[in-house]
């Protein structure tokens, strides 16, 4: 095997960043999926243990993690839409604008979600 020069400097473009983040967010979502199933399986052992477990989750740091999860899912979903659009021949020539547009939508949804969750974070019940 002959040696080769290895450089990943070309990975700095918007398309490449979107690709790398899509992969990373996919892994996070898969890991969350497994954790979620494991946590839910507690319910099989009866409601007492399950409810206690759910109560321990009523903490600010869990909510912060949940907001991060929302961000990751939003990214993966919206970028997924972008990739599917390419497949039907839409937006390939404008992939950067499409990315910026969809990410703006994601950011707005994320902000709205966080605002909606803030009362919990501050320890108040929602009506």
């Amino acid at each position: 095997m002959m040696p080769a020069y290895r450089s990943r400097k070309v990975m700095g473009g918007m398309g490449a960043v979107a690709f790398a983040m899509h992969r990373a967010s996919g892994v996070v979502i898969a890991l969350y999926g497994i954790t979620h199933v494991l946590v839910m399986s507690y319910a099989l052992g009866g409601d007492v243990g399950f409810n206690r477990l759910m109560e321990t989750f009523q903490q600010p740091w869990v909510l912060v993690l949940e907001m991060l999860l929302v961000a990751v899912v939003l990214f993966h979903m919206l970028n997924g839409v972008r990739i599917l659009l390419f497949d039907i021949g839409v937006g390939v020539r404008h992939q950067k604008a499409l990315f910026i547009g969809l990410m703006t939508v994601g950011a707005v949804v994320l902000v709205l979600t966080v605002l909606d969750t803030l009362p919990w974070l501050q320890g108040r019940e929602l009506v």
Partner: protein
Amino acid sequence: MPESQFTLKVFRFDPDMDTTHRYDSFTVPLREGMTVLEALFYVLEEKDPSLAFRYACRGAVCGSCAMHINGSNRLACQTQIVNLKATEAQVSPLPYLPLIKDLVVEMASFYQKMDEVQPYLITHKTPPEKEYLQSPRERKKLDSVTDCIWCAACYSACPVVWGDPEYLGPAALVKAHRFSVDSRDQGGMERLKATDSEEGLWRCHTVFNCVEVCPKEINQTEAIEGLRRRTLKRRLGWK
């Protein structure tokens, strides 16, 4: 350093003597309109005759001089030093292609993949007496994809190629697309065999690195997506 000079850092590797590569720095007097290729010639003629690099046309036509210049794959003969907007030009060989010496890489795997898609007109009927006719509208379909100069800049920039040496790569898929949309071509089925496979057009992850680096401004992703749709239609029996 006076304004009319700049530093050229050149990747050096001689498989007969070196175990690892290094960068040699040269001070090069800057001339108006000077390209990276000219700077390499300056080094070759004035400083170090052992420097190896490829070129032929010096006019962005032959595709021999693609290299990794200041973080991107470009043609040395098409890249002016002033346009790099840096005091230093760092030149390395095309990444992920086997090294032969200094800036020269082994292109065999790239050419082999280009050949796999049969990059020429395939016809089964008896050819017309004079010439194949093509309407301006039919010709227009080829406009954006005929310019490829086989430089491998896109191939070397593709992370799928890095991870999967069997993947056909953007340039070969552009070629397949270019002939499959040509009204004179009848080689659809033959070419499909090479492209409609796991190592073919389905492997593209729309990373767009190929589009970023192509010196001929070809949109490889658009070509690959077009080929995908046409392949799908054919598989479903719509065409």
